[in-house]
């Protein structure tokens, strides 16, 4: 769950990654158990396994088009500031989860 403003930021980040690093596509996903829940991205998905890095405990970035440690390091460097902002947004939007064991709305 992200705001529209964050969505636009993420799309812009992904577009910049695609342009600067010659990627075919890039997208952010929220980590929810085994699920990588799509948040926003840019480019067209190609058949094949996307590269994936965990940017934080709750955020992953996927991309198609280049691989290797250098690409990973480059991507991480470019996203340092963004990650904290998205984490905050995710925490805010997911807030209000019911507390297990307490029927506070029932």
């Amino acid at each position: 769950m992200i705001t529209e403003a964050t969505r636009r930021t993420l799309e812009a980040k992904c577009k910049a990654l695609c342009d600067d690093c010659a990627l075919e596509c890039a997208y952010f996903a929220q980590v929810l158990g085994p699920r990588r829940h799509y948040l926003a991205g840019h480019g067209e998905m190609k058949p094949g396994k996307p590269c994936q890095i965990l940017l934080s405990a709750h955020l992953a970035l996927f991309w198609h088009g280049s691989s290797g440690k250098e690409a990973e390091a480059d991507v991480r460097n470019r996203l340092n500031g963004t990650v904290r902002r998205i984490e905050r947004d995710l925490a805010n939007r997911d807030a209000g989860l019911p507390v297990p064991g307490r029927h506070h709305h029932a």
Partner: protein
Amino acid sequence: MSATRTATWQSKRLARVRRWETQRTYDSFIDENGIHQLLMRGRCPDSKAVDDIIQKARQNATTGALLDPQDVAVLANVEDPQLWHAIFETADWIKQKVYGNRIVLFAPLYVSSLCVNNCAYCGFRSGNPEVRKGALTMDELREELLSLVKVGHKRLIMVYGEHPSTYEYMCRTVESAYRVKHGHGEIRRANVNAAPLFVDEYKAVRSVGIGTYQIFQETYHRPTYEALHPKGTLKGEFEWRLFALHRAQEAGIDDVALGILVGLYDWRFELLGLLFHAKSLEQAFGVGPHTISYPRLEPAVNTPLASDSPHRVTDDDFRKIVAIIRLMCPYTGSILTARERPDLRREVIRQGGVSQMDAGSRIAVGGYARMERDHIPDRQQFLLADTRSLDEFIRDLCLEGYLPSFCTAGYREGRTGANFMPLAKHATVKNFCIANGVLTFQEYLTDYASDATRRVGREVTIPRYLDWIDANVPSLAPKVRANLAKMEQESHRDLHF
């Protein structure tokens, strides 16, 4: 929980549900008179009009557009067998075009049959003393999961009745499903079929990483709905259920699944209900249904309506329903369950463009661990007609030329919701489906298959679909072969794209 506390919970929740209904901001997408008029106008269609709709449906397979309601009304009124032949052929063509010739396999896991509702057609209804109900303890759940994992299942639909602890229990049990490991076996995708929730509750369920949230409207015809779901029960609230998946989307659950219980009302009306539901979700959230299910009303213990409904459908009509769903919503997964007989399932897979099926299913709570082969009607919601084991079912699929698939890659690689839809709508998802199908099927053959299934799988099915990949996705072919070799030589598992 005592009966008094359960009743108090239900009454408080019902009050909250009704407040939500009063304050809802969504406009109803079901106009009963409008649907009836569409069906009237669609009567006695000429063959040219039907041919045009068939062509349109074929074009939609690569754009993801839905058919228009008037088109569906026309198809639902076709009587000419030759035209039906063309519709069935088209359903299969669309399925091949979008998903390829694979069938994704899953197991239903009945986690809890405790339910406060009293639906006239359901064996688990609260007023039916002849079916024993219960909820799995965490130990019992683990036993069930191990039984499933040991035969090769990777993908579940976890089924829950509506009860005070539902969403918290769902969270705990889904997390538990993902923790179970046995040898190379594990559950990789847990979808849920459960009652409608409030947005904050959906958020909790979302946080544990479910696959798809599935809620069947049962019937879109309000008078029928109200007659079958008693007033004063939670399920008696039509709008609450109608917008259940809208609320799920609001909570960030972007893979949602529709369904009808075929046989409660006129199937032609229900098809249009499904279409309007899909359109409403697309319009509000840009993401349509991940799957559509169409379970048919089946006999259940001490449940006369299940056998006597005036709207029960014949096998012929059932075939038509499945095919029209494929034509009207080309991108959606289409789920055909083991309620149907094996012979009918064989026909409907092809005639209806089915993409997902269950096998070796048990639909009693605790059924997998307790039953090797037989079923126990007094613990089941209804009776199953296809009791083939998973291995037998898979072998039959292979002999019919299909690729059995245990693929769960998409949602673990971020291909969910708005990221998944373009792949399905532009018919490129099959490039992932077939490659992942081959890899997961190879896992099954290596770890779980009988000799007979392994033979046909290795000698016929895998080579056939490697040829398909060579011809259609050549860039992926060397990677698929490399992954197959890693699985064979280095015991790697869960290799996917």
